[in-house]
């Protein structure tokens, strides 16, 4: 775990590998595979699907990102980061061999134990797949403990699909996998349309199923509505929220949604919880 005496001090991590998930340019997604400079950190480190970390560069700053690797992937952490602002741009400049900083794990996680025995339905859009990836990989690594795993994912174009090769892997091992793009493309044989439409098209059964979703706010909103229409109850639906954060440990104050601190009480929330907070869906 983090330096108990000072939660503001980050770990230095070495970038072992870094690659672009989507074409280079504005709003590109780059994945970093990192390892602690001080390998001893692993002795105390433990994270769960859904946990976040502050990732940064000294001299630039840090931002909150979900850890996009599952704890079952051992010996490294992964972060998939979309380039948008000052910090993410500076991070995108980094390559294998460089260092960056990681402070975490932070926040809560998906209640994976609670979900044992259930079917898991993952619904993601764009970079929103990053927090779902550890859930998927966790379930894949613990197949015996869970029911069916199905993955729904979409992005604007096929170019913008993150983790492309992994979806192929999922399919090869028999995971139900539905991909979508927003706009018609030559050679695209799968679904064309928005993810909420894909959801209604696939129409998964709510029976004994937990749905986890992440993506842009508008996607979460319509996916949730879609799930409810399919008969999912609020406590069957989980999502992760994103707010501007600075400290990540419930002090700096800016990530509060009502009385909840997204950095500590979240980022994972069940729809049942969020429904009670007017600000969450304002």
């Amino acid at each position: 775990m983090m330096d108990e005496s000072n939660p503001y001090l980050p770990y230095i991590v070495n970038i072992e590998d870094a690659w672009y998930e989507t074409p280079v340019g504005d709003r590109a997604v780059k994945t970093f595979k990192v390892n602690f400079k001080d390998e001893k950190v692993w002795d105390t480190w433990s994270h769960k699907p859904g946990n976040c970390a502050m990732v940064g560069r000294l001299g630039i700053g840090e931002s909150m990102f979900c850890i996009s690797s599952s704890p079952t992937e051992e010996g490294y952490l992964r972060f998939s980061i979309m380039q948008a602002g000052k910090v993410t741009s500076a991070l995108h400049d980094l390559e294998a061999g460089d260092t960056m900083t990681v402070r975490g794990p932070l926040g809560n996680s998906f209640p994976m134990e609670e979900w044992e025995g259930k079917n898991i339905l993952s619904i993601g859009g764009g970079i929103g797949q990053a927090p779902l990836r550890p859930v998927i990989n966790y379930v894949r690594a613990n197949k015996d403990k869970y029911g069916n795993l199905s993955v729904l994912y979409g992005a604007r174009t096929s170019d913008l699909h993150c983790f492309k090769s992994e979806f192929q892997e999922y399919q090869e091992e028999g995971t139900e996998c539905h991909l979508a793009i927003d706009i018609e493309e030559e050679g695209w044989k799968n679904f064309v349309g928005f993810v909420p439409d894909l959801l209604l098209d696939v129409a998964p059964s709510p029976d004994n199923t937990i749905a986890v979703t992440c993506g842009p706010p508008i996607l979460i909103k319509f996916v949730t509505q879609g799930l409810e229409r399919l008969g999912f109850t609020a406590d069957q639906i989980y999502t992760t929220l994103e707010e501007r954060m600075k400290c990540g440990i419930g002090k700096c104050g800016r990530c509060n949604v009502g009385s909840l601190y997204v950095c500590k009480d979240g980022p994972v929330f069940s729809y049942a919880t969020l429904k009670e907070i007017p600000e969450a869906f304002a």
Partner: protein
Amino acid sequence: MGDFKFAKDKLAEVVGALKDYEVFAPAAVGDVLRFKEVEDASSVSFDFKNTNVPPKELMFPETETLFKFRVGKTDIEPAVPDESKKRLVFGIRPCDAMAYTIVEKLYSWDYPDPYFEKRRESSVLFGLACSEPVPNCFCTSLGGGPGSEQGLDALMFDLGETVYVKTITDAGDTVAKAMGLEAAADAEKKAAAAQEKDALGKIKRSIDTEGIPEKLPSLYDHPFWEQFSDRCLSCGICTFLCPTCHCFDIQDEMEAFDGRRARMWDTCMFPEYTLHTSGHNPRPTRKERTRNRISHKYSYFPEKFDVIACVGCGRCINYCPVNIDILDILEKSKQAEAKEAKTA
């Protein structure tokens, strides 16, 4: 604990007797009072109502370094304050001291904040009871008062030529003894009690907080917020001057190859506070921000930490340039019908 006194004109000697302490007391620049480290205790005044800037800056400075680093190097040098340094906060008002006890709850929540805690632990607070409350004080509505002892190690009463000192904690007692204070007599105790009673009578404003924390969330969409937010300037006065406001920003700063990560006061009233990089802002207008400030103090914070994040010092009312009066807002919130919210 003990009862002590000292003659006001002996202040320099009394404080000077404390060898190992850094002494912080209100100091004036023009008409503006702020806590500063004092070199010469004879300059310390008892003749003030309250400081413009609350002494929260002693525990949580406007800008403070979290750690330092150097470009190209990967070692990080934390800048946690030296806990062994003893500090005497002299003349802090009861409301401001009480604020520490509220903010503390957050700073010790789950991940203890070493910067705040080290400063807090190494400080001894000598409070100064109020004899002339500021017109917009309403501390009594929040469990405080002119002679409230919450958070203090000792409480002083300015009785004219003498100062009566009532120690509250061991630490306070130790300091009082180190100062070489003489024991107080009943006369001083009585005078102090009378002064406190008199001061209580001078507090004109109040609010019954009963039910407010529960009600505010139901007024989320209520138009009454606009009566206040429409004239809000979106400035940081109310929050920067609030002894319980504790939000901060973190920034990296570079001087050639040397860098530091620092935190500095931030306020939920600035639009950029919650602005996402995408351009989306969950609190885009002054309405959401005003609502959040009040709700955070009077609903969200108590929900989480069982205490309202307000001590009734009145600063936000006194200094608001556009007369946004938190008591007015709270009163109006009590009158507002929750059912109006959705229809409006």
